[in-house]
């Protein structure tokens, strides 16, 4: 490894300990990479001064033998929905124009307390609504992976800026957030590891809400081990979030043993979707072979309610969003577009402040909660959600982990699927079920499409069994030997 920006967190941690380089060195290298990589549009706000100051503090701690965690001195990106004290926070939306929070979200506070160095705020789909990072007010993010056809690929979404920054080596890791697949799907599209912990593992306090019962913070890294190290710093009970769960944090990295002998790995037959590209199915088969060779036992399982997950999600998430986004009304902060009276001011502000996809979801969410439709949509969706959860619970009596594709395709070109929201929503078909059930899931880069774009495989475990998840994912990662580099890195000078 000649470049500091090519290091993994684990490698950098060891190098910092050995004194091969300082955090300031690491951070400066990433600040340069971030500046050089502006074409990717991965960051909404760069914070080089804060980064260097925190890096210097980290070096001082380490010199005194008081490094705080595995993240101490590690330069990372933060998805721009984490409220960061004194730093513009946009959630990718025009409506949060000029919003500088006077407070720090719990997750980013935890990372900061662990010594992590904030490089900047990463671009994202507006209010985390999207699967391609094309709904951001701050323009689409480009996937560092491209082909020779001259078309830029989407990085997936909604944590597209985080994914691109990690895949493009602008940041060593990034904090994402996952509501229906917003960490895992972009991880798959950009050839990195993206992990969504159990709902309640990370505090949602200070995180701009999309769908409260689904939103969960998680790490986006280049290796499974790095994800374990980073989650260790992010997670933990927070009494300020009533849905965060009070239980001890295991040592996630220690759970990575390389041994999955005897592990029962469920292969859900319903994830074999009609019309799914052959290359996805082929990769999945290879994944099954890899874990079998590693001594685990693949078991076919059935999750018959899987087909209802996507429609259920697209009722529950917009319903919550329609209410969560009501606070953006032009009265107290962010954008205000005046009008002749109060209602006009609301309409002008929200009409200009929210993009099309956000408006679409606010409208559909409002609709499913309306008198006369509530029972037919919202109540039914909540019942299905319970059924989906119960089905997972039953399945996890028989298996320890599930193995599925992460997304039904590789990254598509920017501009595709724009006229068809449903086609766009289908991106989340494999990630949404675990989200609805609150289960931890991880996407591991496992191969390339025929065209040469990265593809991920997803693993899911039962609630709060992130240890098994990391252990199994690391074995999958090792077996997959994913070494391909995005075109963007090949083009670096």
């Amino acid at each position, binding site marked *: 490894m000649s470049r500091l920006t090519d290091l993994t967190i684990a490698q950098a941690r060891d190098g910092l300990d050995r004194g091969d380089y300082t955090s300031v060195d690491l951070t400066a290298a990433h600040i340069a990479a971030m500046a050089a990589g502006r074409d990717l549009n991965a960051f909404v706000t760069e914070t080089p001064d804060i980064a260097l100051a925190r890096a210097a503090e980290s070096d001082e701690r380490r010199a005194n033998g008081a490094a705080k965690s595995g993240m101490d001195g590690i330069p990372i990106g933060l998805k721009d929905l984490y409220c960061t004290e004194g730093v513009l926070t946009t959630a990718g939306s025009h409506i949060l124009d000029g919003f500088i929070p006077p407070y720090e979200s719990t997750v980013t506070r935890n990372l900061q307390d662990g010594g992590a160095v904030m490089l900047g705020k990463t671009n994202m789909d507006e209010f985390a609504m999207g699967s391609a990072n094309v709904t951001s007010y701050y323009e689409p993010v480009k996937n560092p992976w491209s082909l020779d056809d001259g078309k830029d690929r989407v990085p997936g979404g909604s944590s597209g800026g985080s994914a691109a920054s990690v895949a493009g080596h602008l940041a060593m890791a990034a904090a994402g957030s996952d509501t229906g697949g917003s960490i895992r799907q972009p991880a798959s599209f950009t050839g990195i590891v993206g992990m969504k912990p159990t709902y309640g593992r990370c505090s949602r306090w200070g995180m701009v809400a999309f769908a409260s019962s689904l939103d969960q913070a998680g790490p986006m890294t280049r290796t499974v081990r790095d994800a374990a190290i980073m989650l260790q710093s992010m997670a933990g009970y927070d009494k300020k979030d*009533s849905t965060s769960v009070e239980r001890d944090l295991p040592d996630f990295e220690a759970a990575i043993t390389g041994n999955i002998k005897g592990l029962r790995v469920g292969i859900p037959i319903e994830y074999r979707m009609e019309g799914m590209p052959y290359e996805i199915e082929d990769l999945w088969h290879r994944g099954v072979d890899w874990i079998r060779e590693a001594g685990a036992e693949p078991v076919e399982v059935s999750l018959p309610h899987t087909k209802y997950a996507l429609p259920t999600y697209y009722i529950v998430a917009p319903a919550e969003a329609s209410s969560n986004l009501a606070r953006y*009304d032009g009265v107290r902060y962010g954008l205000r577009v005046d009008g002749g009276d109060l209602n006009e001011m609301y309409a002008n502000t929200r009409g200009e402040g929210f993009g099309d996809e956000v408006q679409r979801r606010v409208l559909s969410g409002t609709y499913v909660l309306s008198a006369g439709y509530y029972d037919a949509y919202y109540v039914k969706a909540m019942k299905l959600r319970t059924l989906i959860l119960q089905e997972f619970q039953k399945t996890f009596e028989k298996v320890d982990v599930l193995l599925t594709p992460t997304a039904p395709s590789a990254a598509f070109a920017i501009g595709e699927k724009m006229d068809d929201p449903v086609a766009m929503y289908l991106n989340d078909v494999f990630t949404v079920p675990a989200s609805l059930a609150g289960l931890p899931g991880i996407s591991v880069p496992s191969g390339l499409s025929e065209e040469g774009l990265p593809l991920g495989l997803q693993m899911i475990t039962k609630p709060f069994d992130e240890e098994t998840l990391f252990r199994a994912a690391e074995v999958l990662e090792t077996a997959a030997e994913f070494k391909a580099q995005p075109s963007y890195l090949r083009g670096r000078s």
Partner: protein
Amino acid sequence: MTYLIEGETGDWEVVIGLEVHAQIVSEAKLFSGAATEFGAEPNSQVSLVDAAMPGMLPVINEVCVEQAVRTGLGLEAEINLHSVFERKNYFYPDLPQGYQISQFLNPIVGEGIIHLDMPEGPREIGVERLHMEQDAGKSLHDQDPKRTYIDLNRSGVALMEIVSKPDLRSPEEAGAYMRKLRAILRYLGTCDGNMEQGSLRCDANVSVRHPGEELRTRAEIKNINSVRFVMQAIEHEAERQVEVYESGGDVVQETRLYDPNKGETRSMRSKEEAHDYRYFPDPDLLPLDITQEYVDAIKSGLPELPDAKKERFISDFELAPEDAAVLVADKDSAEFFEALAEGRNAKLAANWVIHELFAVLNKEGKSIAESQVNADDLGKLIDLISDDTISGRIAKDVFEVMVSDGGDPAKIVEEKGLKQITDTGEIETMVDQLIADNPDQAQQYKDGNEKVAGWFVGQAMKASQGKANPQMVNELLKKKLG
């Protein structure tokens, strides 16, 4: 007396249900740590949660839960161990979140009862439910000709909404219900009941019908802030509805406001304009699950409530039920009375509180807590009557001094020389003088006209400026003239 409105098409009965919003007594708001003190500088008691900053989350204040359960128990109501907070969605600038966190399908308290003492007899009014919810902020429309100012101090303050069944049948019953509910809340210490400061607000659902009919369409009168206005608003609204029906119209379901200056209700918004609140369970909060042990512990700590206190006053102090009812109607009055009656003649104490003290307080528009005369001093005054230091009549004079200037009654008696004359010689001299001065009356007395005895006593009191012991005067007259 049944309250009926006489119309051209016959008598009309009024059907009333009340929704009372009671601010929970707590240091902090329902879902944030901000303070709740009344009258603070605008926007000085607002947390990030109350202002609905991005990413802020509500956390339930357990004190408020305890207060709601306590209130439910005080209303003899069913406590629901499982309740759910839901979001009531609507846009308004003083509602920062764009929704109010409330309870809808699963409130913390179910059906209960409030007992009323009406002149025509006892009445039981059903309570439908009690739920917790957040208050909104306040819009100030009069600070600027063009703009509205927002004060978020109230935003997020914990309220209990207490909903009655449509069991009330007259403005008087509605007034009695409000006063009784307020008394119970104050006894429990769960709401200070202060309507002027907005700690207690009332929405009245009013409809009219011919007796025996099914319920007709109701109108809701919003945000009434005094018991008197509640009664007036109902009266005016009922009359309006009767007029609408009798002129061939139909009452429409709508929200109305009461204008106390004009003595009328007027339409605020119709059913068509009504909000669709889109209630759904708040995903930021887990369902509220409490245990029976928790409820039992609160129950064991409940204070004596007005109904029980009234019974005790009747049985222990032998008070007339009307007097007992007057005394327990207010927690402070009941406590004042009990302190006063301790070791004294309870009936005498009750009389002094009800007839003397209340008269003064009513005249001055003061509550008993603001009384210039405390129970201790009033007790000393009663003691002076009981040990014959002063007569009841003199006591009233002393009381007046206590009200106007304050002070220890014994000292007042001493300083003003009001001590009762119980010296036989002094009274005998006075009586002899009276007999000598009034031979006609003396003769009448001797002839057996007993009425004239009263006249003599009156004269003696006059001559002694009220200080003569009237009993002694009587006895001496009998001795000398009988």
